[in-house]
C-alpha cells in the first residue's frame, strides 16, 4: 500500500537537519506510490458469461474494490408481461435463465393456476417435475464443465457440453424445443411424453452419472483445482443469507435450505426421496462439490419419477379464453441457480396487472463487491465461475 507520511515520521528513520545525503535516502525509503489500476472486466470478457461488467480496482494483481455493473442485457420482461396474456408470457420468461427455461416456466404457471384455482392432473405434475429436474441437470452439468474452463482446464468444458446434449435431446423429444420448450400450459402440459422417451431417459441418466464420475476424477480430485478453489471466495452463511444468496451457493455455506423440501409444496417433490447436500466450507470448491452432488441427486429423482410415473390425462379442464380472477399471489421455487419467485397481481383481465420477478442470479451477484475484495485477478474468475450466474437471470 502507499505511504504518504513525511519521511521524518517513518518508523526507525530520523532526518538530520542539513544532511542532504540522508534526505535523499529518506526520499528513497518512502515506498513508491504505485497507484491503483482500474481494470474493466467485461461487458465482453469470457469469464462473465455474457455481458456482466466488473470494474475492478487493482493494486498489482490484488483486487481493492470490485463493482459489478449490470443492465447491459435488460429486456424489460416485468413490464412486457403487462401487455401479454397469461399463455403468451411463458414465451418471455423462458428467456430469463435461458439454460433452464423449463424451470422458469413452472413458478409462473403455478401462480396463474393458484389464482384460477386449477390443479394440474398428477401425470402433468410428474412430467413437469421430470422436465424441471432435466433442465436442472442440463444447467448444472454445463457449470461442472465450465468451471474447469474458468480455472484453465479446457477438456472438462467440452465434456460438459457433450453430455448436456443428451439431456437437451430428451427435452427436445418431449417438448419440441431444445432451449425454450414453452411446454407448460395453465392446467397441465401441452403433450404427453413421446413413445420410447422413458427408455432414452434412463440411458441418458446413466451417461450423466458416468460424466459426474469423470468430473470427480478430473477436477475434484485434481490438486491444482483444489489449490485454486479451496479457501477462495468464502461466503459466510449469515452474510450470504443477508445478501439474498440462494440455491447451491448458500447450501455450500452450510445452510440446509432447499425449497423443494422446505418450501411450500409444489410439483411432486413431496413424493420423492432425495437428500439436500450441504458443505461447511462455503468456498468455491464447496460450491462446485455441492452442485456435483446435486446433479447426482437430480438423476436419482428423475429415475424415481420414471419408475412411478402416474397415468391419466396431462391437461385439466380449463376455459378456452383464460381470464384470471382478481387477486395476488407469490410463488417461489428452487431453480437451478437458486430461488426464483413471481409475484403476480391480477385484476381479472386476460393478462396480469403487474408481475415482479425475483431471479436468483441478481441476488447472487450482489455479494460480489464484498466477496472479491482482497482476491487476486485469477481468483476473481474462479469466484465468478463458482457463483454461476446467467446474465439473463440478472438483467431480465
Amino acid at each position, binding site marked *: 500500500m502507499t505511504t504518504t507520511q513525511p519521511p521524518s515520521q517513518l518508523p526507525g528513520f530520523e532526518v538530520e537537519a542539513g544532511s542532504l545525503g540522508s534526505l535523499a535516502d529518506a526520499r528513497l525509503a518512502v515506498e513508491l506510490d504505485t497507484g491503483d489500476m482500474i*481494470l474493466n472486466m467485461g461487458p465482453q470478457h469470457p469469464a462473465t458469461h455474457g455481458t456482466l461488467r466488473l470494474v475492478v480496482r487493482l493494486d498489482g494483481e490484488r483486487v481493492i474494490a470490485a463493482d459489478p455493473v449490470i443492465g447491459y442485457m435488460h429486456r424489460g420482461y416485468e413490464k412486457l408481461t403487462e401487455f401479454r396474456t397469461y399463455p403468451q408470457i411463458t414465451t418471455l420468461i423462458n428467456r430469463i435463465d435461458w439454460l433452464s427455461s423449463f424451470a422458469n416456466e413452472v413458478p409462473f404457471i403455478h401462480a396463474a393456476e393458484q389464482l384460477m384455482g386449477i390443479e394440474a392432473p398428477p401425470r402433468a405434475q410428474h412430467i413437469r417435475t421430470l422436465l424441471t429436474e432435466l433442465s436442472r441437470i442440463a444447467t448444472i452439468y454445463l457449470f461442472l464443465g465450465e468451471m474447469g*474452463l474458468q480455472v484453465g482446464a*479446457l477438456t472438462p468444458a467440452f*465434456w460438459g457440453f457433450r453430455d448436456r446434449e443428451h439431456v437437451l435431446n430428451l427435452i427436445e423429444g418431449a417438448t419440441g424445443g431444445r432451449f425454450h420448450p414453452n411446454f407448460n400450459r395453465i392446467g397441465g402440459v401441452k403433450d404427453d411424453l413421446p413413445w420410447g422417451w422413458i427408455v432414452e431417459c434412463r440411458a441418458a441418466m446413466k451417461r450423466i452419472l458416468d460424466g459426474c464420475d469423470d468430473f470427480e476424477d478430473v477436477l475434484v480430485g485434481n490438486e491444482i483445482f483444489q*489449490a*485454486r478453489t479451496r479457501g477462495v471466495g468464502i461466503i459466510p452463511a449469515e452474510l450470504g443469507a443477508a445478501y439474498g444468496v440462494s440455491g447451491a451457493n448458500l447450501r455450500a455455506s452450510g445452510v440446509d435450505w432447499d425449497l423443494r423440501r422446505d418450501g411450500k409444496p409444489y410439483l411432486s417433490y413431496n413424493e420423492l426421496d432425495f437428500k439436500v447436500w450441504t458443505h461447511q466450507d462455503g468456498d468455491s470448491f464447496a460450491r462446485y462439490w455441492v452442485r456435483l452432488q446435486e446433479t447426482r441427486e437430480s438423476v436419482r429423482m428423475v429415475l424415481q419419477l420414471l419408475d412411478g410415473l402416474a397415468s391419466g390425462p396431462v391437461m385439466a379442464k380449463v376455459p378456452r379464453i383464460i381470464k384470471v380472477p382478481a387477486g395476488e399471489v407469490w410463488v417461489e421455487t428452487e431453480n437451478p441457480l437458486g430461488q426464483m419467485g413471481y409475484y403476480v397481481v391480477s385484476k381479472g383481465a386476460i393478462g396480469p396487472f403487474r408481475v415482479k420477478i425475483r431471479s436468483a442470479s441478481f441476488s447472487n451477484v450482489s455479494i460480489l463487491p464484498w466477496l472479491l475484495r482482497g482476491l*487476486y485477478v*485469477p481468483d476473481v474468475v474462479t469466484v465468478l465461475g463458482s457463483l454461476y450466474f446467467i446474465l439473463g437471470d440478472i438483467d431480465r
Partner: protein
Amino acid sequence: MSVLATLALDIGWGSTLAIKTILVLAIIPFGALVLGYTFLLKMMSHMQSRLGPMDPGGFHGWFQLVGDGLKFMQKEDIMPAEADRRVFAMAPAVIVMSTFLIFLVIPAGPRTVVEDLDVGVFYALAVSSLSVIGVLMAGWASSNKFALLGALRAAGQLIAYELPLLLAVVGVVIQAGTMSLQGIVTAQQDGSIFGITAIGNPFIFTQFIGFALFLVAAQAELTQPPFDMPVAESELISGYMVEYSGFRFLFFFIGEFGTAFAFAALAATLFLGGWAIPGVHGATAELLGPFVLFVKLMAVAFLMFWVRFTYPRLREDQLQSLAWKVLIPIGLINIVATGILKVAVG
C-alpha cells in the same frame, strides 16, 4: 546438412550460411504445423470427444492449419492507436528469433547440425529465455492493461523457471562430461547400462528426476497449462497477445509451437539419446538421424501436450512457490546426487 557441408566447399561460406538459415527458418513453421496439427487439432479433439477439422486437405483435415495461416495473412493488421508502434511491430519477430536461435544447436545426425557449439546446452537455454523480451515488448507496447498484466506475469514466470530448467540439465552435463549437444548424444549412444550396450545409456534412466524437472520447467517456459497464466484465456483473454491480429498473431502462434518443437527436441536430445540409435554409425545414422529424432521428439511432445490439455491453471503466486520451494531444491539435490555418484561410480 552434411551434403550441404560438402557442397559448401564449392558454393562458399556466404551461400552456406544462407542455405542453413533458410533451412532452420523452414523448420520452425514446419514444427509448429506438425505439433499444431497432431496435438492441438487431433489429440485434443479426441480427448474432448470431438473430431477436430476433418475436411480441408482430404485426409483428416491436415490442411487446416495451413489454411488458417493463409487466412491470418489476409487479415487486416490492426495496431492500437496508443501503441508504441515500432516496439509493437518488433515483438513477434523477437519471439520467433529466440526459437530460431535454439534450433541452431540441435543436432539431427552425426554431422547434421548448423553449429555444434562447445557450450551447446548453455547456449540453447540462454537464447530460449530471450523470448521473454519479446513478450514484455508485446505487453508494454500494446497499451492494454490485460496485455500488460500478462506480460508482467510472463516475465516473472519465465525468470523463475529458467533456474529449474538449468538445474535439470546440469545432471545430464555432469554425466556426459560435456556441454556440447553432439557430445551428449554420443555419450548416450556409446554408453552402457551395467555393461549392456543394446540400448546405449539414455540419460532418462539415471536422470529421471532431471527429466521430470525439465518437462515441468519447459511447460512453464512455453507458457502452456498448467502454467499458462500469461495467456490465461479466461482471465486475461490471451494476455500479451490480445491486441495482435493477422500476420503478427500468426508469428506468435508459430513462435509458441515452434518453441514447443524445439524444447521437445532438446528434451529428446538430452534424455532420450537424440538422433542416435545404439550401434548405428556413419552414413546410416546420418540418414536415419532426423527421423529418429523426430519420433523421440514427438513422444516427448505427446507428454507435454497431454498435460496441457488435462490440467487446470495454477495461480501466479502458487507457480512461484512451486518453482522456488519445490523444483529448485529437488534440482539441487539431483545435482549433488549425480555428482557423488559420478565420482563414486566413475
